[in-house]
Structure formats: C-alpha cells, structure tokens
C-alpha cells in the first residue's frame, strides 16, 4: 500500500523529460527502455529507503515517566540529545518536567522538558545518555513546494512496542496555512499542510523531506464527522518558525510569540487591501507610527495580500523580533522598523504563570533557572569550541592579535595599536576602571575567550542579528555597564555585543561583528563596527590575527 502510493509518481518523475508521453504513447518502448525505467525506479526507491534508514534513529516515542499510557512523538536535533516535540505532548508532565523517550534501539531514556512554546505548540526536551545521539538535521521549510514528497514518523495509536516509528508518506497539500485555535487546539501560524497520514500519537513527531531533513513538527489534523483520525489533512509547524525560538527553548524559557498589537481587516471584495482596523495604545504598531486605516503594504519585504497572510508572518516570530513594515497613508508609503510585542500566553499558561509564589515549584511555566544556566554554559562552550580545539582555553591565552583601539570619548584621536597587555583575564581587571567602551568590549571578549563557562551569563532568548538567528546572553556585573552578547545559534560565532550606557553621552554602545575568518586554530571576527546609540562611530578590520605558539616570550 505504502509502496504503491509512493512509487508510481516517482517512476514518472524518474523518466525525466520523457515522462509526459508515457501514459499514452509508450508504444515504442523496447526492453532496454523498460530496463532503464526499472533502474530509475530502483534508484529513486533507494534514495527514499536510505533516507528513512538514516533518520529513523532520531525519532522518539515520548511517554510520561513510568507509564505507557498517553504520550506522543518527538525528534532529536543534536548529538547531545536535544529534541523537539509538541507542547501538548509534554503538557501532562510539564509540572515535573520529567518524562521518558523510547528510541528505535529499543531503550527508554530519561527525558527532561526544557523550553515551552504554549502559543506555537512546541516544546524542547533533552534525552539523557552517555553516548552522543543520532540526530536529524534541520532543513528549510521555505524551500518546500506544493506537491513535494514528505515523510511523517512517530508513534500513531501508540503502536510501537519496540519504539520503531511508523513511517507514512504523502505530499505537501498547502503552504503558509493559518489554523485558528478552536477548543483545545492551539493556533498554528504559517504551517505546512500535508496529505501524509497523521494520526493521534503522531503529535510532536518529525516531518521530513526526501533529503532526510527536518522540515516540520506534526501536530494537528482536520477532523470532522469521522472521529479523531486522519482524513487527509495534517498540519506541521514549520521548522523555519521553530528555528527562531530555538535559543530560548534550549535555555528552558517559556517563549512568547510576537504581535503588532493591532488588528487588521480586509477591504471586502478588494483583493490585497489589508487595513489597520484597531490599534492598542502604546503597542508596537502605535509606537511605530501606524494609525487606523493605514494600509499594510509589505511586512519584512513580503507584499501583504490577506489578513491570514499577515497573521502568519507576525505569529511565526518571537516577541522582541525586529521587523520592517511598509504602510500606505494618503497614497504615500512609509517604511518603519519596529520590534514585535509579546503576545499574551494562552489562558491556561497565563493562569499558571500568575499563580502565587508558594505554588511556584509546581508551575510548569516558570523559566527553568537550572536549564537557563546550562544553556548559557552550553552557548559559551560552543563559542569556545568554535575558536579552536577543546583545549582552546590555553590556546586563547597565548593569542596575540593586533587590532585597533579607539576611544569613544575622543573619536577623532588616532587609533592606538591594541595591546595584549590590556586584555587581562577578568579577575585581574578592575571592572570599575573599564569606563572606556572599547576597552570594556575587549574585556568582555577576553572573558568569553578565557573564562568561558565561568561567568553567570543569563540566556534571555533569541534575536535576529544580520539575518541570522542568535542566542542572546545578558550579564550585569556590579559597577559596570550591563552587557548583552549575541551568538549565532547554529555556528556559535560572536555576532553582537551591546553595552548599556557606555557611550560618552550615556547612550548604549553596540559592536557588530562579521566576516569571520579562520586564522590558524581560531575563527576570529575580521570586521567590527561600533555604534554609539544609532550612530556608527567607527569600523575597523582585524588584520593580523594569528595564534602565538605556546612557549614564546
């Protein structure tokens, strides 16, 4: 059954340019053609089977601890056991944050629930084991097209006694779907619609493309009249949306989705006219200058044609995310840049968060402090590793690099060569003296490099920096400006450093890094820009970045 659904189109596809003539005019086909077609079928089938074999070990059957009742599915996304599932799968044990995950090796592993996304129906967990896990690489759901083949895996109807997932296949039926929250179902923004068979128990399981890349998390189906079983319409949360929340989910935070804090309406009968209908006082839209009746023309560069489309685009981003909006008023178009507000948590989650302090231990939505610290350490660890080998600590101490130092207080003064002697480990530097922003910046970088996991940085969530998803850490040392550090979530490279009130006029100072180059064992920022407030103060290049061999004077 499964094979027959899959094979026929693939065979046609495999025939390449000639496939269109096959149904009626394959009269001239001789034995060689048949053999060649067979070989193509085999090749295509092998692609699919290999793809399935490769990713099956990453699929998790999730259960409450010590029980086989209820549960759902999940997928591991990195070798340390971090994985994704639905919020509604872990909700029954979100209080204890402990469950169990069964893998196709037949074993059950302790499962810790980390970050929660009650609005987007996503949760992150981590499986506990000594060995690294086989994981599924993240794909890009923006590359999907209607008609693409997809594979869903998981534990529908809890059939998998041995934790071998059920595999189903189908096509992408629609993209950028907006599914309203009804009853117990949560809102799904910008989700992927598939005719792949998704059933109860598939919740939280992966949706793969035929390259074996994770493109979504299955979580919802359309049901009516025929009970809670597959009727050919399944919905998966797109991985592009989830990726923006990953840093905060890893950190064990309860994440908030974004909102413009305004409602829109479509002008009836006129396609593509989306107007601001109501606007919340002091909300993101109002602060950005939008008024009632303004037409929203573009959002983050995408032309807006319907209300659903705008809801999709807004709801798929975290609160605090920077976006651009082009609106039209009196025939004039204006572009504004704003940060999204936080959308309120769903009622249940909000009630739990507002619970009195004595119930705090049972509150599943309390930011997980321990996980927070773990995530901070992890981000720093990764950053350190990105700078070289595992023993980067000792290597970094021996690095000499020649940059430039420039004082914010005297921007016109000639640049001074950057002296390694300035870059003492944090313990030796009196933080009170570090009033010079440039020096402070170096010090923090030094701390990151040399002191790594020791600083109690706090993970505050994710952000977009130069088009990349970044994990954001914060630290507020006594007597020194608070700082925020942003790392690329995937590569671990330093993207941005912000210092509060460190500019000459007490304005915040921001350093942005790009052009990462490998220099010996290290990957170092090649280019750096420094902003005081919004003003670019200077831009420079680190020309000579090279590690010093240990033992040199």
């Amino acid at each position, binding site marked *: 059954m499964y094979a027959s659904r899959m094979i026929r189109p693939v065979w046609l596809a495999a025939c390449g340019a000639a496939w269109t003539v096959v149904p009626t005019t394959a009269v001239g086909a001789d034995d*060689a053609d048949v053999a060649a077609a067979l070989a193509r079928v085999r090749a295509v089938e092998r692609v699919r089977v290999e793809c399935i074999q490769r990713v099956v070990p990453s699929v998790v059957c999730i259960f409450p601890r010590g029980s086989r009742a209820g549960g759902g599915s999940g997928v591991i996304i990195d070798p340390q056991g971090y994985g994704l599932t639905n919020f509604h799968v872990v909700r029954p044990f979100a209080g204890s944050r402990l469950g169990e995950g069964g893998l196709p090796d037949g074993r059950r592993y302790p499962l810790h629930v980390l970050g929660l996304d009650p609005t987007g129906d996503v949760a992150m967990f981590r499986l506990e084991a000594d060995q690294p896990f086989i994981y599924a690489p993240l794909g890009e759901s923006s590359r999907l097209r209607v008609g693409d083949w997809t594979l869903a895996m998981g534990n529908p109807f809890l059939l998998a006694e041995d934790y071998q997932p059920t595999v189903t296949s189908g096509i992408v039926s629609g993209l950028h779907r907006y599914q309203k929250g009804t009853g117990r179902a949560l809102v799904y923004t910008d989700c992927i619609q598939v005719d792949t068979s998704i059933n109860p128990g598939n919740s939280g399981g992966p949706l793969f493309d035929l390259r074996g890349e994770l493109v979504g998390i299955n979580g919802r189906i359309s049901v009516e009249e025929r009970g809670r079983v597959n009727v050919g*319409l399944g919905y998966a949360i797109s991985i592009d949306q989830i990726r923006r929340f990953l840093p905060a989910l890893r950190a064990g935070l309860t994440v908030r989705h974004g909102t413009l804090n305004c409602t829109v309406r479509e002008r009836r009968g006129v396609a593509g006219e989306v107007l601001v209908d109501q606007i919340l006082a002091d909300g993101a839209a109002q602060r950005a200058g939008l008024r009632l009746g303004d037409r929203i023309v573009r959002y983050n560069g995408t032309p807006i044609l319907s209300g659903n489309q705008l809801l999709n685009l807004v709801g798929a981003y975290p609160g605090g995310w920077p976006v651009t909006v082009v609106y039209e008023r009196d025939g004039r178009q204006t572009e504004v840049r704003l940060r999204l507000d936080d959308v309120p948590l769903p009622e249940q989650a909000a009630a739990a968060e507002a619970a009195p302090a004595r119930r705090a231990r049972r509150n599943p939505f309390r930011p997980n402090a321990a996980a927070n610290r773990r995530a901070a350490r992890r981000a720093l660890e990764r950053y350190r590793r990105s700078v070289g080998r595992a023993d980067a600590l000792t290597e970094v101490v021996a690095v000499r690099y020649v940059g430039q130092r420039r004082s914010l207080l005297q921007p016109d003064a000639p640049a001074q060569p950057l002296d390694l002697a300035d870059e003492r480990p944090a313990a030796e530097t009196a933080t009170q003296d570090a009033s010079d922003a440039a020096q402070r910046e170096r010090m923090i970088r030094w701390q990151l490099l040399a002191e790594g996991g020791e600083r109690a940085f706090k993970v505050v969530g994710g952000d977009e920096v130069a088009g990349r998803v970044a994990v954001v850490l914060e630290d507020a040392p006594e007597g020194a400006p608070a700082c925020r550090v942003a790392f690329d979530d995937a590569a671990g490279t330093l993207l941005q450093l912000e210092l509060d009130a460190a500019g000459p006029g007490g304005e915040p100072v921001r350093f942005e890094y790009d052009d990462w180059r490998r220099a010996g064992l290290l990957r170092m920022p090649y280019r750096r820009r420094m902003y005081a407030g919004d003003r670019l103060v200077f831009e420079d290049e680190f020309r000579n970045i090279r590690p010093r061999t240990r033992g040199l004077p």
Partner: protein
Amino acid sequence: MRRGRCMPLLALAAACGLMPTVAAGAPQKESDVLPPAIPNVVEDAWRAALPCVVKLYGGAIGSAHGYGTGVIVSSAGQIVTIDSVMLDARNLRAVLHDGRTFHAEVIRRDADRELALLRIESHDLPLLEPETSASLEIADGVIAAGNCFKVAEGEEPVTVMYGVLAARTALDLRRRAQPLAYGGEVLVLDAITSNPGMAGGPVLDLTGRWVGIVAGIAEAESTGTRLNYALPIEEVRAFLGRGGTSEEAAARGASGNAPAASASGADRGPAAAGPRGARPDTGLRLFNLGYRDVAAFVDRVVPGSPAQRAGIRPDDLIIAVDGKRVATISDYERIAADWRNGQTVRLTLKRGDEVLTVEMIVEPPR
C-alpha cells in the same frame, strides 16, 4: 499499446520487491541514473489548473456544509460544481484564485448526476477544458484539489492531494438513508477526497489533464464506509453538452432548464450500464434529515421515474403502502426494501387537505 501500458505496473511490481531479478538486464548502473533530486511532478501538473479552481460559499442548511469547490469552464464566468443545498443560498459567493469575490447564481442543475452550472459576472477568466478519462488506468497517479475544510481563504491556494486511481466501477452509494440518483461508473480514488467542501474539485492526471470531478460525500450501501470517488469527466462533458465549450454551455444555460434525464441517458458513455440495473428505484426521494426518524414527506421526484408517472409530487406525505400504515421514513423503507421489479404498489398520500391513493409500478432505473 498493451506493452507500453504495462510498464508502470512492471515498475510497481519491481518496486515492491516482487520481481527482483528483472533488472539483471538493466544496461546502466543504478548510480548512473540516480536523480539529483526527486522532481515534483504534482506541482508541474497542478500549476496550470490552479487559477481555474474557485472556492464556493453558500448556505449551511441542516447538516450540509456551507462551502464547496467549483471549476471555471468558460472564460465568461461559468463554473461547474457538484449540486447541493448549499447552492440554494441567496448569497452564493465564488472566490477566485486571486482572491476576487463574485456573487454567483445557479443557471442549471442535473439532479441525476448531481452537477450544477453557476455563473458569475466576469470575463477573460482562465478555464479548464474537460478532457477524457479514457486514458486513465488503474494505479495511474491522480491529483485532486479543493476547498476542503475551508483551509484556504481568499487568494490562498486550495488543498492539493495525491493518490492513484484505485478502481472504475459503479457503486451502490447512499447519502444518509437515501440511495444516490447517480448509478453510473465512478472513479474510486486512493486519496482521502471525501471531505467537507471538497465536492466539485477537479481531479487531474499527472499530465495536468482534467479527468474527473470530486463528487459529494456518500457512503457505501452495504458497509456504511465513506468512499473517496469522483465522477468521470465524461459526465461533466455530457452535462455541458458534450463539447463542453462555453458557447454550447451558454446556449443551454440560456434556454433554461434542459431536461436532465434526457441528457443523462445517451451521454453516459461507458458508464451507462451499471450493476444497479436489477435494483428497483421508484425515483421517490423522501425528506430525510438523516439523524431523526421523521414522517415520510416526499422531498423530490426524479423526472421520468415510476414515482413521477404515478403522479406523486414533492411535499406529499406517504401515510400508507398497500394498506399498511406508514408513520415514519423507516417504516416506508422497511416496506420498500421488499419490492421487486414489475410489482404494482398502492400508496396512500396526504396532499394538502386531501387524501388520495395512487398506483406505482416498481421498475429498475432507466
């Protein structure tokens, strides 16, 4: 011809591991023919049809869903869909693929095939030409599309599903307790198309040709299971007047209600003779709510049927059959289940204030 056709089946069998030795003669190594990426045949076949599919919104009456799907068949705004009570709404709306919304009116219906022709005030529309389903064989891939569950709104593209043609056969179908008027051949699909709102959606083959139209939700008479099936496109062509061109269709539309029964007889094509032949059908359709056993009011009388010849009219109340009292629809159905072809039955009816008795000869459907 035969040989060419057996290729996909061969491929299928091989893929299922049934014929592992056949490829011994394959001239190429598998790695030589490995596709760089598996192409998306559905998108290619579907792209041209997308602008011709409209979402319909009408009245949600009783258990009927207030939405459906239609296909534009003339550039002057004619739309074919599956007939249902939804179309009786005063404000029937058609939403085009680009989000434009039009008021639609029903210009013709075919009760036998459950097809309806709508018109919107527009022109220069992209249209889908009804082709033939003759070249479609069992296990060929098909694409079905439609407005199921109202998942897509405005300019959002409708749902697309992939499946294969599982069978071509006539089926004993019923909708709730009523047998379906249509007894001809249908395309049974291995794709879950039997969903609210999907009726009227096009079924395409993998070259993008329009080969069928997703029919209304119905259950198998014997098992009660829902079947995923479509009317072969020949029925649409016959409904539109064979050629299916806008001019002919417009001419028929303008001439008022063409007698549906006469159109359906000769133009049925290969589907005409179904196994339903032996089964009596009086052409009597009762007002069945489906979930409640109610008095046996006549909802509809199929033109040319035994019931029409007996003079039975809509809104008659059946109160007795052959002297036996009929209180509810289920009473009537219990009695009618024993009728045989050729048998004459006496129905006692209440029409307005009068009570009358008619004789009806039970016959197979024509």
